[in-house]
């Protein structure tokens, strides 16, 4: 067997090395050098920073990074309009393209129906389907409802959601609710179209698309998302970003530290959020970088902007994906929307 060669040995070696090297860089050796006292170090660093800020050109860089940690400067104080238009769901709020907002109710999560005609919302013990004007169509009492996701055509729609660690599916008219099995707390993802193929993560971190894909067990995924044509599925974990084709074959693995990821609508190009940067892949392009901690990334319907949430700065950033456009930022999000809720989707 000495002459045996497995498929794509070199590619596999290179992909895996990135993950191994990253793990090695983060390991903490057992024998550590003695460190100077923490308080003295902090005091010294503070004095050094003040001196640097006051007297030296590099000090301006330090000051800038401190400012960056508290948000983009010259952010708009209010959401006057949505760059690029459309409608955004955030918690129990609907934000319209002209900047007007509507409170739909006391919901912790919301998401759009396939054509943006309805909204599905989660309360702690209730799944709710409603119209964008807030009119409730139906409700379903279930414990610990999370991650409702709606899919289908104009005539046949289904909603997947988690309830008490179980994945459940109900028809769009609120009938036929049934359990599919145990699931990890990750939003399930319907494949676009009418096939009703559902990607979800099981409690061992395996990603499952029934009849198509079952990955090896691993760290719990952070995000599952299909490309808009349903030909690609991304599986994002804290350290890896895998892309599969519609037959369940893995096409690529990218390693790093990730917070969120999405396909740009109409393409197979990936936008990724690391804790401190917004990037496009293949080719890698850094769109925005900060010292602060970014949380969520949602592409606009036309893919020309990325909404990036930055809770610690209380800002939403609208990051252009094309060169020549300016980034815009909006502050005071929590005050306007009654809290820093997860964005449930951006539709046209």
């Amino acid at each position, binding site marked *: 067997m*000495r002459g045996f060669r497995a498929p794509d040995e070199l590619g596999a070696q290179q992909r895996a090395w990135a993950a191994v*090297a990253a793990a090695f860089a983060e*390991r903490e050796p057992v024998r550590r050098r003695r460190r100077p006292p923490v308080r003295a170090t902090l005091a010294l660093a503070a004095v050094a920073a003040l001196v640097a800020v006051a007297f030296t050109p590099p000090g301006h860089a330090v000051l800038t990074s401190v400012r960056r940690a508290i948000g983009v400067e010259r952010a708009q104080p209010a959401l006057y309009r949505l760059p690029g238009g459309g409608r955004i769901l955030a918690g129990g709020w609907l934000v319209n393209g002209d900047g007007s907002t509507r409170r739909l109710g006391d919901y912790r999560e919301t998401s759009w129906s396939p054509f943006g005609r309805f909204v599905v919302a989660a309360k702690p013990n209730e799944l709710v389907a409603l119209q964008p004007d807030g009119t409730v169509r139906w409700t379903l009492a279930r414990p610990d409802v999370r991650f409702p996701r709606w899919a289908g055509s104009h005539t046949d729609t289904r909603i997947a959601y988690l309830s008490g660690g179980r994945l459940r599916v109900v028809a769009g008219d609120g009938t036929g609710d049934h359990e599919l099995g145990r699931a990890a707390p990750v939003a399930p993802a319907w494949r676009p179209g009418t096939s009703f193929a559902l990607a979800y993560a099981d409690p061992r971190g395996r990603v499952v698309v029934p009849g198509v894909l*079952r990955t090896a067990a691993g760290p719990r995924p952070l995000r599952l998302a299909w490309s808009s044509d349903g030909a690609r599925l991304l599986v994002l974990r804290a350290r890896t970003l895998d892309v599969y084709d519609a037959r369940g074959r893995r096409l690529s693995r990218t390693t790093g530290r990730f917070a969120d990821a999405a396909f740009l609508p109409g393409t197979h190009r990936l936008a990724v959020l690391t804790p401190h940067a917004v990037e496009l892949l293949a080719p890698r392009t850094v769109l925005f970088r900060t010292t602060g901690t970014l949380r969520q990334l949602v592409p606009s319907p036309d893919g020309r902007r990325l909404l990036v949430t930055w809770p610690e700065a209380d800002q939403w950033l609208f990051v252009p994906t094309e060169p020549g456009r300016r980034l815009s930022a909006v502050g005071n999000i929590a005050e306007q929307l009654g809290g820093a809720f997860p964005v449930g989707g951006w539709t046209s």
Partner: protein
Amino acid sequence: MRDEHAWVRAAQAGSVDALERLYRAHWPRAYRAAYLVVHDAAGAEDIAQEAFLAAVRALDRFDRRRPFGPWLHRIVVNRAIDWARARALRGEVEVDESLAGGDAAETDGIPVRALAALPPEQRAVIVLRHLLEYTPGEIARLLDLPRGTVNSRLRRGLDALAREVER
């Protein structure tokens, strides 16, 4: 072997260059071994990667006097057996796309397809014996099995392979 001890020592001291040398020396055989047990390229990549990640996590506790290879191969093969068993329980087909068409791959006269027809435990001992070239005694220690069990799995596995080849 002397190089390997030096790489382990340097990696324990924080040298990424030493770790990379260790990785490049051991990746191909670890990946091939995993592949021949699970017959799935993505699965083998995950298994080999996880084995190296486990090695990195345990690097500081590793006894430098011992060889690195057997320690790594023990992790790889045990994980590969678990993976193949789990897949068999799910009733999935065990033919990787890369082998699905054209000429079947062969390794020293053993068709890879024929190997895939064996139970994972038999595949594992054949891979350890004929790819990684451990003796039956070493395999018994690696897998925590009686030596007689290793010998019988080897014999049964090779007999089954011979029948497959004759078909």
